């Protein structure tokens, strides 16, 4: 009976061989295009890294710290139920090495004691702060100032169901020309602001700058600063360490080099406040609000025909707590996929429109291939191509080429980004850690990558179902090595 069924399937596939080989070739070509872009990113990232390297230049940062000329910046810290980490996080932010900054913490209707612990720790009192409602957000219940830290303000507001609404409320009260949203579960390195502000000082047309995000899990944190950089011992954060190196050091550097940076991470990005307000601030109707802000800025500048620049700088680092369980990681990846689709479809009118320059002609079509078609094509390929090969519709060379594109090329890209990291930045603490990451670069392509693809497909499904849940993420606090849960 089974033999008969197999024969029928084989006959069917052979009868429609033209269609199925066409489908297989489409999947392969899609993979090939993605991989060619990745391969081109490597030299572009290397050139960009060399051109703007601040890696060995401690003197310029030091001189800037001593000077009166640094551009003032507002640090926006949205907080929802962060009573465990918020005081330590704010202390860490207040100790940043930068001459002129203000910190605006937004208590986004927390159900725990986030506001109370802030009031107690920083001697807060209600104040008036002149403002205009620049962007839409939920009502503000009160503004607090600190009698100890004159540059610290806390905004207490009604919950707006997301980071975007809280960030918008902070924007309403921000006074400085630049702002940076800092996640309450992240730590900025002491010199991160000094280094990331440099592009704004070099180029008056600079409107946004992105920094690097690295995985905090495993590191030893003392007094709000990473004291000892270590790799996570838990598998999921470990694999994310490599993913972050690859995404930031290769992909974003390359897009920055080509002038088509379309993503600046919400965990560490610096933006021109005036322009961000002009485009309506962060959109509350998407979970990819950081991605969308960048696209909105591109759109605005190109529609107004104003020259502008955006850049990614690799040296300033924001350490973030990565999901350390299968469930939390899955939730994050589904949310990222949903966010990418929401933003893409919201701005699909920019696609292939010369009016939107390189963004419309190259960057967004690339995002279409990677975010929209990519997960679907890869999933279909994993299922169908082995069947076609087993039934003789495709030959061995085809399945080898497919495996090369969707498994082995990933090894090349991940290993190459480690090479780039080691040649220029050397932020991986030890040779042993580099070897471990090299092992991860191979392993991740066999199992993890496919799992990631499944999460992305679920993200696609959630997008179609208009599910806009943020997902669960528990915090453990910073004052210890992060892998205590291992």
């Amino acid at each position: 009976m089974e033999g008969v069924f197999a024969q029928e399937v084989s006959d069917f596939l052979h009868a429609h061989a033209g269609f199925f080989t066409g489908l297989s070739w489409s999947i392969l070509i899609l993979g090939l295009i993605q991989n060619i872009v990745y391969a081109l990113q490597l030299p572009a990232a290397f050139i960009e890294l060399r051109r703007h390297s601040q890696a060995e230049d401690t003197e310029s940062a030091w001189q800037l710290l001593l000077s009166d000329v640094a551009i003032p910046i507002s640090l926006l810290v949205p907080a929802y139920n962060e009573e465990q980490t918020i005081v330590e996080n704010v202390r860490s932010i207040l100790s940043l090495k930068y001459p002129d900054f203000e910190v605006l913490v937004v208590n986004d209707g927390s159900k725990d004691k986030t506001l109370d612990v802030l009031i107690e720790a920083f001697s807060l009192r209600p104040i008036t702060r002149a403002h205009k409602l620049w962007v839409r957000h939920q009502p503000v219940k009160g503004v607090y100032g600190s009698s100890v830290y004159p540059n610290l303000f806390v905004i207490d507001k009604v919950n707006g169901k997301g980071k975007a609404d809280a960030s918008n409320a902070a924007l309403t009260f921000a006074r400085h020309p630049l702002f940076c949203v800092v996640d309450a579960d992240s730590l900025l390195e002491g010199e991160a602001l000094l280094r990331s502000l440099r592009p704004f000082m070099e180029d008056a047309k600079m409107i946004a700058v992105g920094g690097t995000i690295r995985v905090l899990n495993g590191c030893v944190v003392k007094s709000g600063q990473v004291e000892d950089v270590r790799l996570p011992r838990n598998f999921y954060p470990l694999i994310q360490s490599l993913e972050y190196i690859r995404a930031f050091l290769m992909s974003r550097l390359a897009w920055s080099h080509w002038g088509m940076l379309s993503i600046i991470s919400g965990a560490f990005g610096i933006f021109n406040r005036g322009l961000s307000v002009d485009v309506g601030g962060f959109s509350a109707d998407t979970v990819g609000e950081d991605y969308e802000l960048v696209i909105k800025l591109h759109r605005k500048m190109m529609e107004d025909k104003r020259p502008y620049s955006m850049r990614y700088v690799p040296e300033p680092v924001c350490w973030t707590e990565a999901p350390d369980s299968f469930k939390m990681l899955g939730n994050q990846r589904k949310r990222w996929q949903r966010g990418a689709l929401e933003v893409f479809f919201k701005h699909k009118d920019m696609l292939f429109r010369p009016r939107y320059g390189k963004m419309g002609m190259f960057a967004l079509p690339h995002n279409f291939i990677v975010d929209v078609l990519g997960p679907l094509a890869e999933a279909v390929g994993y299922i169908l191509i082995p069947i076609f090969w087993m039934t003789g519709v495709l030959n061995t060379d085809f399945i080898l080429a497919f495996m090369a594109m969707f498994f082995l090329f990933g090894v090349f890209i991940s290993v190459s980004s480690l090479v780039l990291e080691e040649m220029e930045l050397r932020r991986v603490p030890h040779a042993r850690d580099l070897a471990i990451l090299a092992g991860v670069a191979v392993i991740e392509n066999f199992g993890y990558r496919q799992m990631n693809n499944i999460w992305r497909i679920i993200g696609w499904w959630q997008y179609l179902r208009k599910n806009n849940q943020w997902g669960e993420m528990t915090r453990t606090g910073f004052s210890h090595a992060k892998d205590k849960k291992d």
Partner: protein
Amino acid sequence: MSPLVENSDVVLQMIWQSTIVLALASVAVLFLLIVCRYHSEWRKRHKDRLREELSRYFYAAISSPDSVRESSLPAVKRRNMDVVCSIALDMLRAVKGGDSDRILALLDVWQIQGYLLQALEKGRRGEKIQSLTLLSLFGGEENLRVLLKHAESDDTYVQLAALRGIATQYDTGHVETVVEILSRTESTNRLMLADILRHFGEEAALPLARLARNAEQIDVRVSALMALGMIHPLSAVSAILPLLQDANEDVRAQTAKALGEMGDIRTGAALARALTDNSVGVRVQAAQALGRLRDEGALSALAERLGDENWWVGFRAAEALVRIGDKGISLLRSLSGRQDAVGVMSMQVLAEMAEA
């Protein structure tokens, strides 16, 4: 087998074979880098020990009443001179006067200047910047020539390090040369350049005003104006006043700011006119400048701007009225009863200032 696939076998083979080669090559390169890293970790441990030893020696040497002698110096191989430079730079950032001279004397006995010149030729950006910083501290005509040569570097940060050395360690006699170099510079970090130019001090006021008027690059002009604002020499007021009408809005805004910092009350009328400039940035800077001047003659002009279409202009105008003093505050109070944007702005700023 499909004929389509059969004809494409060569392409398919190329794809999988080249991918295997790329993957293997990248793994091989990374393997080499890992081996190098093992080796460099051993060297780093050695350098860390050396750094510890040398730091102790430096501290002992600067606190010792005896002068430094070559015979008492710990032996440092040329390849480890970077450690000496790095310690010296760290210490020089923290000490002044006699201690700083002793550190330089110590470096001189080590004959570090030869090493620094070599690092300038062959080193990477960070080493060049470090070398220029240290060379400038030694002073002397020979080092000045090196600094002036690197002041023409295409690398912005190498150029800035050389300029900083000239501005902070040499007298102002070279400002004309620096202005000449900068008038040709193609790109810069405008804020860091301003911070460097201010070190030339009041004597550089007129050359800087000339740079602000004539440099090719807007960034350089803006830097010169910022530096003038920080130096605030009254002698440059008349030279930069016409720049309030410059075609470039950054230049106009920075001129307004600089005039505010210079504090010459006679510029009040020109700044009050700048409150109606087309550019928001210029209007904001003009309002702040009038606040700094505490010019009571600008009360009505500032009050008019409270209802500016741009909120920041209104806010800075209100702040300026508060800074001007009793008359400004009274004016704000009288406006705070209005039911429009001017009233709201006046009320908010008065409340904020009262709590502050």
